[in-house]
């Protein structure tokens, strides 16, 4: 494994690991705050139990997210010192702001987790709101920095040196808006569905358990709304790509020839040498329509770019297909959930019909699949550049030899952490409280595992 590949693998692995916890850090606080707010409104203890349960999950996930995020902030320099030397002054600003958002999140999460008896109920709920807001803000700032790598703005070159640095213009780069909305929604959708899946699974085994019913309702509401809105943000991004990163769009679509009224390829096998995508389902005019909202618009194909500036087409195309497929499936389940919620509201049926629960369970990992696939599209689709059109990834890498060693070390460390987190969460879920409609009291000790 050469050094560049080792550095890229380590970065990819670190990001892929961190994003799982970062997404949880964005969405879990919202759900726990909703549960606590319901408790404040209804005084129904089940909501309080739920808020506390979700808070425990948040605590574990946030801690791992915080430390893996720390690793990333160092890895920017450990792996890509030339990139940071160049980009630091231009794009350091959102990182500084993210620092403050992270501070706010950590402070108020401390108050939330340990402060149940220390602060007033009102202050406690507000602490949770602060965690939810600052979690989303952190994500926005970091994604702005990533968006700049895709569509760099806010500087120019003068005599081979960077000049006219404008950090505000860098933050306002063309990808920023689309990417931030897309990722924040993705976090709500993925975490909402994952949590919904856990509670749906419990409901299949333990029907009528009110604890799981309510948990399922909140998780599906958060995840479902996000999943239904997600295609809109995807559309914003698609148009942005067509304008600013046409080569990435072409790779995502397996689109080789520049043409008017370009068709959309669903699936298929992009053959870079033959410059065609085989075996795909073609929908005429659809790509032009999506990219420019005009069925006759011209969409640039990969052929119109120098071969050494193509990203790895297959990886980008497949990842994109996976992301879209996962997102579509989630949206359909979300619509089904909306339909069921309507029936429940009209008192025409329960939320937890068997087939519906099974669909929710099947959809529960899809959000995280879509997030990972989506980041593959973003990052691999930008190659061979670390900063589009400005700096190649190979120019940015550290001269440090033997990078395969830290890559393997961090991989093993993260596998260990990941398995431990899964084990701890499983433990949490395994002793959920059992509460039923006829006796609105916890039956079996409400499952406080720790006492």
């Amino acid at each position, binding site marked *: 494994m050469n050094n560049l590949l080792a550095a890229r693998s380590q970065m990819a692995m670190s990001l892929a690991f961190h994003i799982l916890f970062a997404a949880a850090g964005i969405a879990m606080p919202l759900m726990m705050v909703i549960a606590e707010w319901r408790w404040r409104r209804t005084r129904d203890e089940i909501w309080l139990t739920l808020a506390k349960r979700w808070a425990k999950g948040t605590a574990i996930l946030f*801690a791992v997210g915080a430390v893996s995020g720390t690793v990333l902030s160092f890895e920017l320099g450990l792996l890509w010192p030339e990139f940071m030397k160049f980009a630091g*002054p231009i794009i350091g600003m959102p990182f*500084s702001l993210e620092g403050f958002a992270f501070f706010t999140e950590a402070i108020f*999460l*401390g*108050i939330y987790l340990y402060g149940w008896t220390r602060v007033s109920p009102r202050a406690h709920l507000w602490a949770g709101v602060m965690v939810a807001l600052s979690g989303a803000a952190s994500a926005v700032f970091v994604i702005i920095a990533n968006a700049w790598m895709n569509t760099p703005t806010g500087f120019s070159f003068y005599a081979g040196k960077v000049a006219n640095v404008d950090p505000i213009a860098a933050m306002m780069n063309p990808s920023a808006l689309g990417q931030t909305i897309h990722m924040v929604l993705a976090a709500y959708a993925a975490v909402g569905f994952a949590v919904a899946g856990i509670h749906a699974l419990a409901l299949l085994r333990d029907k009528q358990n009110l604890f799981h019913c309510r948990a399922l309702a909140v998780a599906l509401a958060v995840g479902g709304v996000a999943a239904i809105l997600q295609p809109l943000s995807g559309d914003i991004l698609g148009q942005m790509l067509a304008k600013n990163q046409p080569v990435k769009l072409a790779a995502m679509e397996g689109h080789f020839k520049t043409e008017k009224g370009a068709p959309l390829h669903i699936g298929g096998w992009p053959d870079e040498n033959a410059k065609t995508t085989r075996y795909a389902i073609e929908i005429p005019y659809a790509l032009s329509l999506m990219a420019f909202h005009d069925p006759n618009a011209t969409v640039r194909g990969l052929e119109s770019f120098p071969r050494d500036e193509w990203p790895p087409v297959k990886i980008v195309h497949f990842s994109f297909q996976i992301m879209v497929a996962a997102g579509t499936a989630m949206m359909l389940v979300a619509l089904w959930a909306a339909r069921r919620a309507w029936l429940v509201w009209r008192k025409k049926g329960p939320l937890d019909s068997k087939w519906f629960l099974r669909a929710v369970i099947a959809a529960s990992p899809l959000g995280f699949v879509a997030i990972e696939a989506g980041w593959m599209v973003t990052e691999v689709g930008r190659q061979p550049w670390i900063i589009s059109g400005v700096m190649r990834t190979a120019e940015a890498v550290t001269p*440090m030899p033997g990078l395969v060693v830290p890559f393997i070390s961090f991989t093993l460390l993260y596998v260990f952490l990941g398995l431990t987190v899964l084990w701890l969460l499983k433990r949490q879920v395994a002793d959920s409280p059992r509460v039923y409609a006829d006796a609105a009291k916890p039956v079996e000790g409400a499952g406080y595992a720790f006492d």
Partner: protein
Amino acid sequence: MLSIEVILAGAMMASLTLYVLLGGADFGGGVWDLLAALTKESGRKKAQRELIAEAIGPIWEANHVWLILVIVLLFTCFPSAFSVISTALHIPLVLMLIGIVLRGSAFIFRSYDNRADNVQRRWGRVFSIASLITPVLLGVTVGSISSGRIQIKDGIVTSGFVHSWLAPFPFAVGLFALALFAFLAAVYLTVEAKDEQLREDFRRRALVAAVMVGVLALVVFLFSFTGAPEIRRDLSASWWTWPLQIATAISAMGAIWFLWTRKFRLARVCAAAQVTLILWGWGAAMFPYLVVPGLTIQNAAAPAVTLQLTLIALVAGSLLLFPSFYYLFRIFKSNPEGATSQAQTTQRARPQDRE
């Protein structure tokens, strides 16, 4: 002289100071968790560990962010210094990160895993060993950038990936950092302990740590003759040296005296002052260098517009940050004695409670 670069370097120093005073003490807590093994009586061993967990539980994640702020300021305002440091010190920094990851996650896993003794002990061991190693590596980093071993030519590190840090001086600084963190933690814990016996345990530990700090300060000083000649010269030749040394010595004596006479709150003030003075003495000796001898605050600085905007962001962020921090510490650190009932105190180590 007080240019915007210098102000931002000062903000970095301030952030590092807060990291050491707050986050450093959290690592120190881990050291005492490990050394609780030396206490024979199992009830007291457990009580010590519970006090430590309770003291750092609500605040360690917020304290940790001070380090992130240092890094972010470094790469935004002094990007070439960040690039050089992370290249030359790749190995100790990677090890430090592994320490940070294991410390944080083991601490949280211990809080949320099975309460059975063997499970708790296993996570406790990971947590405490990581708390022992990480400060040493942080100190190695600080020692290396002061030592003059990191050589740069045309912005490229020429001193290699091992030579830059593998020397007695950086490791002496590493051990010194560990002693300081442990000292801070022990002093803070004397204030936070709720029963007499625990307080005495940590008083004794604080006194021992104070002696260790003194011994290791001497070791660092002796190694600095050959290990960091540049900043040692600065430290012994400048006009501010003697007032600073005397102030540091007075705070150190004060900390010991107040520990001896059991005025723990005053001891805490003196210990924090002592550590702050040590750090700022180091900072003043480093001035104007960021990495001795190649990078200075001036020649590593980002363009002016970046510095100005960062300063604005810092001021604006602080308006949000300091009140929030004050609120956090007021909730968890004010008046630990007497204010809470027995029922609450037995549970405070754990983030969950039954109602």
